[in-house]
């Protein structure tokens, strides 16, 4: 007997209601967007502002002291590009260093060594609970600008010079012997590949775990070192920064602004990453460690084979949002006068009056950088996820 056909009134039919909710949402969205747009265009029309991007070709007329070379005769568009490169430089180095610092501090806070544990705790709690902009001022005005005058620079082994003009490091450059050394490099590379393949095959044949890449690396380094000693003069020389009348010349130089911003971001983000790392390790159940110990694995093996692969799954998503925070916080560069994209864009706005276009550019740049970062980490997270069903 077929079930009795009951007619559901439309306003009680969940299938209809579901679609209706969607339709109402879309209509509301369109109305709001329309209101914003008409409002904007009416106001712009009234004040006589025209939105357009032609001004990017105009001459900037200001100088940027940091990053790829920029003259005051270059265009606004190029100035913004210099800002983007400066931002990427801080973000790239910052993420790398903050991750290392965070890992070390996070593991240190779990240490059974009282002093190590307390030091990590004090660092994390102090940094996490004070505003970043205050810390940036501290690093800039109270640390880097309080370094000695450039003529009385602190000299660290290297030689590395620290002064209120920033950090000056030796930089390697190639000499005329480099071309003959490059044959050794190529030979080393070929040998290393051969060793890698051979060692891998051997390990597979005898069925042992091992690290063929380490063997390959040693081969490459060995060959390169041999070449270095055989050549009459070394193929790479260090260009040492030399003090001239006003500042250091040559070598690699970092301004105090860059140093302060980088230090601030790394120390700040590192504290958050440390807590994430600690949480990730603690999230792996005690039973996992006990089971691995009971199987006679040693401490290092327990950490590497059992704890860390599982902790990573918990760590990746929140660590990604810390990377994104670091990227966005880098816009505080304006507080210490580092010419990042936000600070350069500000200058452009002041000179050209093109606020709407530049704000769009700024938001677009951060959006693109953040989306790329999260796309990468989502991909990685999917790759290492646990199989449950």
């Amino acid at each position, binding site marked *: 007997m077929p079930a009795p056909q009951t007619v559901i009134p439309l306003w009680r039919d969940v299938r209809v209601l579901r679609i209706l909710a969607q339709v109402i949402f879309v209509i509301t969205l369109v109305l709001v967007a329309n209101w914003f747009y008409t409002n904007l265009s009416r106001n712009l029309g009234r004040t006589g502002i025209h939105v357009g991007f032609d001004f990017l070709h105009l001459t900037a007329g200001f100088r940027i002291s940091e990053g790829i070379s920029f003259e005051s005769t270059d265009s606004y568009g190029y100035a913004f590009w210099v800002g983007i490169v400066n931002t990427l430089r801080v973000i790239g180095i910052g993420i790398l260093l903050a991750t290392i610092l965070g890992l070390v501090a996070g593991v240190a806070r779990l240490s059974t060594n009282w002093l190590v544990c307390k030091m990590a705790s004090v660092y994390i709690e102090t940094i996490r609970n004070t505003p970043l902009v205050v810390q940036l001022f501290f690093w800039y005005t109270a640390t880097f600008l309080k370094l000695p005058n450039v003529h009385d620079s602190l000299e660290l082994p290297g030689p590395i010079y620290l002064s209120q003009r920033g950090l000056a490091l030796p930089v390697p450059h190639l000499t005329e012997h480099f071309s003959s050394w490059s044959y050794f490099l190529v030979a080393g590379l070929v040998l290393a590949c051969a060793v890698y393949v051979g060692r891998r095959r051997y390990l597979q044949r*005898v*069925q*042992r*775990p091992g690290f063929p890449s380490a063997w390959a690396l040693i081969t490459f380094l060995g060959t390169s070192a041999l070449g270095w000693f055989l050549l009459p003069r070394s193929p790479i020389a260090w260009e040492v920064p030399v003090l001239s009348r006003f500042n250091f010349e040559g070598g690699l130089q970092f301004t105090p602004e860059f140093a302060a911003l980088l230090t601030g971001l790394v120390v700040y983000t590192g504290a958050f990453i440390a807590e994430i790392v600690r949480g990730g390790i603690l999230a792996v*159940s005690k*039973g*996992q460690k*006990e*089971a*691995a*110990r*009971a*199987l*006679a*694995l*040693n401490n290092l*093996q327990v950490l590497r*084979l*059992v704890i860390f*692969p*599982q902790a990573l*799954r918990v760590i990746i998503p929140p660590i990604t949002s810390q990377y994104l925070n670091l990227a966005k916080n880098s816009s505080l560069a304006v507080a210490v006068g580092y010419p990042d994209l936000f600070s350069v864009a500000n200058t452009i706005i002041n000179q050209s009056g093109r606020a709407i276009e530049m704000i769009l550019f700024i938001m677009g740049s951060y959006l693109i950088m953040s989306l790329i970062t999260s796309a990468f980490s989502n991909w990685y997270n999917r790759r290492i996820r*646990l*199989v*449950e*069903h």
Partner: protein
Amino acid sequence: MDCVETRMSDPIIVAEDVHKWFGNFHVLRGVHLTVSRGEVLVICGPSGSGKSTFIRIINRLEEHQRGRIAVDGIELTNDLRNIEAIRREIGMVFQQFNLFPHLTVFENITLAPIWARKVKRSDAEKQALELLERVGIPEQAQKYPGQLSGGQQQRVAIARALAMQPKIMLFDEPTSALDPEMIKEVLDVMGELAASGMTMIVITHEMGFAREVADRIAFFDEGRIVEAAAPVDFFTAPEHERTKLFLSQILHH
């Protein structure tokens, strides 16, 4: 008080006057126990009596503070080499299975042989297949622990412990976390293991298993072994009041 007599001549685990405190709580108050090679010892007792702590001390998942323990002639001291040697002789099965969720069943079983016993990968894999046959789930080799039932997970855990080729197996309430219909499949594997001559210490409240498989049953209460006897004597003529009370509680319901 040494209430445990050595019935077989060849002791493999010797515990003398073992004490353990958790802070101010005196968990173990002088445990004396000798287990012979090939013996199956079932430990029962109320929760909080220290039975679990005791077997965890045997492979140093907990540290004892007084007394002496020796496993197969190796003294359990703070010497890392002794601890690792003892762990290599002892397999352990936990109440919550504790399989590694990021590794397949196969990798769970081969991990320790490859890294801790330095066995060739192909040998470890061959052995893993044999062990999975033995515990009755060879078809699950490529699955992850999260995809198995509780009973299957516990059987994998037994196979993983056996892969280290231990001389002694410790079971810490291996069926307490299982659904009733899965208890039998795990107990069957343990029974088969006992029949093969493995030395076993099993904490369990499965009295049917104790009656059939155990050589001796030890009753723990308040950090001591109150009574230890062969199953027949233990069930028909318990000596101590505390044992009688416990038995009446778990057998009549």
